[in-house]
């Protein structure tokens, strides 16, 4: 993509304050998303995907703080006042959630949700225009006008997710962040939702950040993919290239763990993602990495471009001149155990 990025994330860090100390959920992430582009963000549960998505909207829970840059329209979202942020949320940056069942206010009709949203951002709209725009958007999502005045509990999960998407899309945001939008839905509904999202990009040039742990979805619908591990993006590039020839051992292991019709045996990555309260020294993946070297256990990997549009954070790709002497020796099993304990 040669387009100007809609959103440009630079060295974004997000911390959660907990009783046991700060947790670095997102640790120095950079990512560009261009207009009309679909970027997949993948990784295991708890690696900071959702936090990154919310960090881009400045929608962090109480007790979280962030620094770095999220540039949208020439301005940094990090450090904006709540009022400025509120103006961006909706008409510029949209968010749809994993769990559609509880995302609509149970006491409000669908109609009222749309009215509230449109009145908030386009106060000059009349009731008739609000109704027309809402029904048109809902219609595109396959929700008939007869159901406009119903309450959320009268809809199924898949329908509620389509309503949520319609609520986000009715304002025609430049960037839509979809946080595991199909995880709680069955495969047929999943396919519907994905095709709706694909239409959005085609018809309106909406940029889409698709957060998921389903690599199949990424392969099917994303232009580029970013792989997250323990708060960092460890590899990023065109989805096709990354899937055919993964550069990071984590990406490779993740791809091996997927299930297809040819799968005869389930592959899993030994160990669990590290605690972000006290992440391991050096590369955060080294305790679980089958290709770990001495250097990985001691020194943070440096991001390296391995192609015009691909980057990776792994000592296997160098830069060689930064690896201390003897650092490329294989990290022995005992060391792995020790490192894991530390």
């Amino acid at each position, binding site marked *: 993509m040669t387009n100007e990025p809609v959103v440009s994330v630079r060295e974004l860090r997000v911390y959660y304050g907990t009783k046991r100390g700060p947790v670095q959920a997102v640790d120095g992430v950079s990512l560009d998303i261009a207009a009309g582009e679909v970027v997949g963000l993948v990784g295991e549960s708890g690696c900071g995907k959702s936090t990154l998505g919310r960090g881009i909207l400045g929608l962090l829970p109480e007790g979280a703080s962030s620094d770095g840059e999220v540039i949208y329209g020439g301005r940094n979202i990090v450090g904006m006042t709540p009022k400025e942020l*509120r103006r961006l*949320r*909706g008409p510029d940056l*949209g968010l749809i959630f994993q769990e559609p069942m509880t*995302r609509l206010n149970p*006491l409000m009709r669908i109609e009222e949700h749309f009215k509230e949203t449109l009145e908030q951002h386009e106060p000059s709209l009349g009731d008739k225009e609000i109704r027309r725009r809402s029904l048109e958007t809902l219609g595109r999502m396959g929700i008939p006008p007869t159901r406009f005045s119903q309450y959320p*509990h009268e809809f199924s999960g898949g329908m509620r997710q389509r309503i949520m998407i319609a609520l*986000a899309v009715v304002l025609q945001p430049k960037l839509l962040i979809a946080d595991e939008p199909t995880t709680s839905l069955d495969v047929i509904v999943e396919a519907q939702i994905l095709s709706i999202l694909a239409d959005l990009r085609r018809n309106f040039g909406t940029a889409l950040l698709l957060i998921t742990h389903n690599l199949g979805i990424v392969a099917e619908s994303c232009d580029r993919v970013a792989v997250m591990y323990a708060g960092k993006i460890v590899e990023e590039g065109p989805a096709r290239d990354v899937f055919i020839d993964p550069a990071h051992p984590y990406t490779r292991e993740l791809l091996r763990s997927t299930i297809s019709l040819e799968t005869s045996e389930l592959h899993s990555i030994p160990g669990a993602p590290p605690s972000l309260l006290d992440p391991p020294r050096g590369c955060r993946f080294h305790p679980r990495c089958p290709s770990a070297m001495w250097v990985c256990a001691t020194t943070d990997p440096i991001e390296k471009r391995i192609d015009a549009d691909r980057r990776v954070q792994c000592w296997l790709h160098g830069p060689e001149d930064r690896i201390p002497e003897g650092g490329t020796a294989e990290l022995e099993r005992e060391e792995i155990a020790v490192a894991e304990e530390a």
Partner: protein
Amino acid sequence: MAAKGTSLRQYALTRLALVVPMVLILLTLVFLLMRVAPGDPVSASLGGHAPPAVINQIKHKLGFDKPLYVQYVQYLGNVGRGNFGTAINPAQPVSEIIKVNGTATLELTLYAMIIAITVGVAIGLLAGRFRDTPVDSGGRLFGIIIYATPIFFLGLMAQLFFGVYLGWLPVSGRASPLTQATLTTHTNIYTIDAIIDRNWAALGDVLRHMILPAFTLGLVTAGVFIRLIRINVIRTMKDDYIEAARARGINERSVVYHHAFRNALVPVITIIGLQVALLLGGAVLTETTFNWPGIGHELLLYIENRDYAAVQGIIVVFALVVVAVSVVIDFVGAFIDPRIRY
């Protein structure tokens, strides 16, 4: 819309039908409890010095020597015709007690309820909204103190401070003798009577007499509301649709008022209904403290005299009020929360 109307009507009819067995069970319980409790109205009113022959003769005249089931059937028949019988000592028709003293209690509890809801909802919402701030700590402390204080103690302190020490407010009775003499009783609810007569001096006097007892009774009940509403607001503020509304850029004011507060108050409505029962119980103490000629005041007197007819009549009235309030509360709940109707 038609579907909604039907289901609401159906709900209302079912709810009303349930009142019949509730009242029947209640009448039976009150009847049995009075017979099981030691003592009887005749010995109590004659002071225990009358010869057994005289006592038995009076008992026979009043029908207390008949088998219990005969008395029970007669009692149900009488109540069914709206006849609550006659109290023995002091002798007067029970319906008269209900009319005169019942309305005094009704007026007191009505104002107490208004105060309880106003104070409780306001402080509860604020404490929940501004959690862990001085507003919250202050609100909680206030709630605990007024809830933990016995009504008669709070009443006595209020009398001492506002009545005796500051001399601002009258400490007993419903009105000054002058007002009692000049006010025509249309409804026996003095504030309404005064308004009907356009007797503004009387209205002021009646309201001044109302302040201390109504606040005493209302504040104790408000203590429950404060804690309950605060917890509900805190819980609701964490709900998924709140985050979703923020993600659509809805302003914080609407998020709090339209989404959080409305949802937080749904469970509270049910509790308000239950509190009416407690309020009536509290009214007995308040009436005694403030020498308020209410029905609770009378109830204590007649319980001491073991007056079957009077006690049964008064308790049934209490019970009917609680049943009526719970029906109304259920309707309000169903009206506010569409999910209850299904």
